[in-house]
């Protein structure tokens, strides 16, 4: 089965629907037209740019190029993790903790999947490596961002509770046990929802895409199951690492709660 290719006209027609939405908004006086238009244009430009880059990388298909792309993806994801937090940890530590937790887990999981499960040849085959890393990274980023946000926000609000334990001689571990497990849970909630909803409430995007591209549904399903496991493992381990590193950073060597290491709330 061949892919029905899309022409620019098809896309213009689709954008007409959004344009119609914008017109209705103007008529109703709901000043959202500018945001809608800007974000739509931004989406088109970003995706076109990625398409061009991916075409080039797929043609080149050398390891250094793929490593470069992976590093850019991880750097941007690390920035996003910090940007999504209300009271992120200040300075390079804040960026570094998110980035370390994310890159370690997402990279290991992606490489394991490529070498042991999908067994592409070469293992860094960009057609597989980059979309796989992207999907895993996107989910891990969300999970780690939520986990760290929960950690820093809750620590900020529970200063009295945490310090009450410290003054009674409790260790940092004891004083943050609940905080850490709650933050872990916060990071995993979207993944748990995704697992529960998969196939019943929502058809996962990748599976839909493969089916549209002509794969047999059962093949698409197998890939989706693989991805789901990979995402869950990467998000879970990533949140775990981020929460442990982040919780440690909230205290100094003398086990003092250092909320001055958090950015002031925005």
């Amino acid at each position, binding site marked *: 089965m061949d892919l029905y290719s899309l022409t620019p006209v098809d896309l213009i027609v689709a954008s007409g629907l959004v344009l119609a939405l914008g017109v209705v908004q103007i008529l109703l006086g709901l000043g959202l037209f500018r945001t809608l238009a800007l974000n739509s244009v931004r989406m088109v430009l970003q995706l076109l740019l990625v398409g061009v880059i991916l075409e080039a990388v797929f043609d080149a298909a050398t390891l250094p190029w793929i490593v470069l792309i992976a590093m850019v993806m991880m750097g941007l994801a690390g920035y996003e993790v910090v940007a999504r937090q209300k009271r992120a940890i200040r300075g390079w530590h804040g960026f570094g903790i998110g980035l370390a937790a994310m890159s370690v887990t997402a990279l290991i999981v992606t490489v394991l999947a490529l070498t042991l499960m999908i067994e592409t040849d070469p293992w860094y085959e960009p057609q597989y490596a980059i979309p796989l890393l992207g999907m895993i990274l996107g989910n891990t980023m969300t999970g780690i961002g939520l986990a760290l946000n929960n950690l820093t926000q809750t620590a900020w609000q*529970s*200063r*009295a*509770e*945490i*310090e*009450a*334990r*410290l*003054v*009674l*001689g*409790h*260790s940092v571990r004891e004083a943050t046990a*609940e905080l850490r497990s709650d933050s872990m849970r916060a990071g995993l909630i979207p993944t748990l929802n995704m697992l529960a909803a998969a196939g019943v409430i929502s058809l996962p995007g990748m599976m839909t895409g493969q089916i549209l591209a002509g794969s047999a549904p059962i093949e698409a399903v197998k890939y989706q199951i693989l991805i789901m496991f990979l995402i869950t493992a990467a998000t879970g381990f990533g949140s775990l690492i981020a929460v442990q590193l982040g919780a440690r950073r909230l205290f*100094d060597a*003398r*086990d*003092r*709660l250092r909320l001055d290491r958090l950015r002031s709330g925005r």
Partner: protein
Amino acid sequence: MLFEVKDLCGPNVPPVSFALAAGEVLPVRGESGVGKSQMLRALADLSPHEGEIKLEGVEQQSMPATDWRRQVALVPAESGWWADTVAEHFPSRPSEAWWERLRLRAALWESPVERLSSGERQRLAVLRALALEPRVLLLDEPTANLDRDNAEAMAGLLLDYLRDRSAAAVWISHDPREIAVHDDRWLEMTAEGGVLHGSV
């Protein structure tokens, strides 16, 4: 000396030095916002500071923070409660005598923290700290939320504890009569630093 403080200072803590012998109480007075509570936090090693603080000759920084805080126990003005019931906040049940002396109802032991009055919280926070049998107590207005009878009971219990265990206390108080101790030494906190008054 049981507790020695030399050139303590830090962010929001004006410079201060003093020393306490076993059984001794140092009342602390000064305008609000001058850094009295911040000084207690530094003494408990809860916030960054400079200077030398020794317990029985052992420097604060040479001891694990958890050990230090168990022996130099801070009772902050606002007590924090992290679990649901009162009992979960105590390592073991405090003595019946203390409980009754502070006129706490026996049923409070099992009750949820959210139902405690501010006075009950304050008394329980003191008992929680005493349960560690600290050598030095850092008290931040321990009777602020108590009526006169309860405040007297609290002050009496604390002074008895200090005498019986030959412990020492740094005690922020706005009521000069509250701490009826033998010598008349007290620490005045000013923005420029701590000033010791009375016999030295």
